[in-house]
């Protein structure tokens, strides 16, 4: 019997049975003062930003001093958090409950701004100017595929140092970029630093010493090809850039490594965010496996937009009843029953997806957040999401 046949033949377990997997207790995580960084990751469109903001708000109202780093929030949510502008500065979120002694700052990552700041902070004014004006730098800081991930890490490192030095914050909540592939986020620091001080870049730089000299024949052919494809200008830009940037290389690598170490320490924890659809859960599985492989600390999964119903009426019965309601005055009843039948079918599909995930990864704890009737656009709605996140039922 195939897997599909089995799921068809077996009656679905009641919703409570889903919770046989361990429960992800958000309140326990935010209540633990040793938790200093929470990273929310997952594929695009699963509500990562909302989850990050809701956790940050809940932690702040529970007495933590929190800063939330968001990447690309919906405009209205950003406005209600007071981070409508890309300015890289954490700003206090108004209208939160501070009776427990906590606070909440929010900021939106400005990728290029962060990169510029690093350049300015770590080089002489002349060199910084040369780098900022460089064509290659312009492409690298705004378009390079790993830059956003890398800069999120850089910013996280900065926020952490500031938190340690001044006690401004005791918890950093990070919303990760909607990485094209799950690998990008973890690979970004390594990828960018290996690009910047990689073998090929060194090959471009004269003069070649030692064994590198032996490659010079291969190199001149290669250089010719690259020049043909890209043009001589870009190669020159890269050379100029590398000369100016050389002093920064070590620092970049060092900080990237330090941030990765911080992320794998007991002070950090990863939450994988998903929705109960096949695609989102497949991406989530990838994240969970990858994080496990890299020995990163995972707390568990947040599954958003799970549908529920308070009416125990099967879709078959709802449709049968609707069919019998022939009178035209019952249009509302018919539509309500039809919608209920759809909802029940959706609930069945979703719980099957969640179950499959749980049976393949039974030790990964979960918290389910029910689907909300409206978009989350203000602090009050975020607070409600926080309640749902922390709620076991």
């Amino acid at each position, binding site marked *: 019997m195939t897997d599909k046949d089995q799921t068809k033949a077996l009656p679905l377990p009641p919703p409570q049975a889903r919770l046989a997997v361990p429960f992800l207790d958000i309140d326990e995580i935010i209540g633990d003062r040793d938790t200093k960084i929470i990273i929310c990751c997952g594929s695009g469109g699963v509500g990562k930003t909302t989850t990050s903001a809701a956790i940050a708000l809940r932690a702040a109202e529970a007495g933590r001093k929190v800063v939330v780093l968001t990447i690309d929030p919906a405009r209205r949510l950003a406005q209600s958090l007071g981070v409508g502008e890309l300015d890289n500065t954490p700003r206090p979120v108004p209208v939160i409950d501070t009776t427990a002694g906590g606070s909440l700052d929010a900021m939106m990552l400005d990728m290029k701004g962060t990169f510029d700041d690093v350049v300015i902070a770590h080089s002489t004014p002349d060199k910084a100017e040369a780098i900022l004006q460089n064509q290659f730098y312009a492409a690298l800081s705004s378009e390079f595929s790993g830059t956003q991930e890398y800069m999120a890490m850089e910013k996280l490192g900065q926020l952490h140092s500031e938190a340690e030095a001044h006690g401004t914050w005791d918890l950093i909540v990070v919303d990760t970029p909607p990485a094209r592939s799950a690998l990008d986020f973890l690979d970004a620091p390594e990828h960018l630093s290996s690009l910047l001080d990689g073998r090929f870049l060194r090959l471009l730089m004269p003069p070649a010493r030692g064994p590198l000299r032996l490659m010079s024949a291969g190199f001149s052919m290669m250089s010719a090809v690259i020049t043909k494809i890209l043009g001589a*200008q870009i190669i020159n830009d890269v050379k100029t850039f590398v000369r100016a940037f050389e002093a920064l290389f070590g620092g970049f690598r060092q900080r990237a490594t330090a941030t990765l170490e911080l992320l794998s320490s007991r002070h950090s924890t990863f939450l994988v965010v998903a929705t109960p659809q096949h695609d989102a859960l*497949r991406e989530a599985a990838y994240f969970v496996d990858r994080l496990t492989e890299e020995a990163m600390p995972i707390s568990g999964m947040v599954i958003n937009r799970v549908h529920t119903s308070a009416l125990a009426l099967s879709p078959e019965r709802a449709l049968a009843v609707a069919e019998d309601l022939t009178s035209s005055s019952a*249009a509302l009843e018919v539509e309500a029953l039809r919608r209920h039948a759809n909802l029940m079918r959706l609930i069945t599909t979703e719980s099957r997806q969640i179950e499959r995930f749980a049976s393949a990864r039974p030790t990964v704890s979960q918290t389910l957040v029910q689907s909300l009737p409206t978009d989350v656009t203000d602090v009050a709605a975020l607070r409600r999401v926080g309640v749902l996140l922390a709620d076991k039922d």
Partner: protein
Amino acid sequence: MTPRHTWHIISGKGGTGKTTIAGALACALATSSRRVLLCEVEGRQGIAQLFDISPLTGAEERRISRTPAGGAVYGLAIDAEDALMEYLDTFYHLSLAGKALDRFGAIDFATSIAPGLRDVLLTGKVYEAVRRKIKNRPNAYDAVVLDAPPTGRIAQFLNVHAAVAGLAKVGPIRNQADSIMRLLRSAATTVHLVTLLEDMPVTETEEAIAALRPTQIPIGTVIENMVTPTPLGQDQLQAAAAGSVILKVPGLSVKQNRALASEFAIEAGRTLQEQQRHERLTALGLPLVQIAFDHGGIDEGSIFAIAEQLTDQMSLEAA
């Protein structure tokens, strides 16, 4: 005669079902004995997962589906490095040099330092597939569907002109970009945007259209995905959403009727919100297509069901 559109480009915000719609559109275009190529460029193996087949690798154009209408859909996962190798081979007969470059990590380097180059290589490969028909080459396709990057990046991705502007003023890459741009701006091309009737995806659709307009690449339809149609009117929905409706379903207790009514209030409220977003999309002045929400999840059968809805609502070129 040249078909109306041979190159269909699909974009949409993450989570809107863009890959599913791209797959369904490829099936819809594959009517009797037509050959359609479905391409992806983001290395996600979305096509393989959608059609439940083994991963598509290298330059392989594998048949992934025979449609009920008697056509065939082929799948291709385009990788920038493979495309660069092929490019070097075609234009410079440099396959050996390509291999040497690969050994030095130069290809990764070249595509990394010049992200625009990556996009030109990816669109260039699709361009080549589209052109086979025009040039009467073997393995020609009647239509090519591209599962393109999401709305946030689509204009930048397709605007290959701008991508190479700072990179190459002359030379083969520039010429290649010019040719791709000519085809993109021609009547053979059309861009479709997939959205949900939710705030963020609709906003991103509006922004993507605003960003695409200056590129002069023709925009086709906006596809509203996962829509729940209703026979009810505004008044009825508003009353239901306000909770001022008392349902009397025979056989259900008063309590059950109340539970059904409050569940329906949320549903009706959501439908009203969806209708407002539909109005926003209508204001864009583009043809709109609606795809019904499949409450049972997506499998091959439902891809064909979506294909049928696309055929009914879009004026697709026939065989």
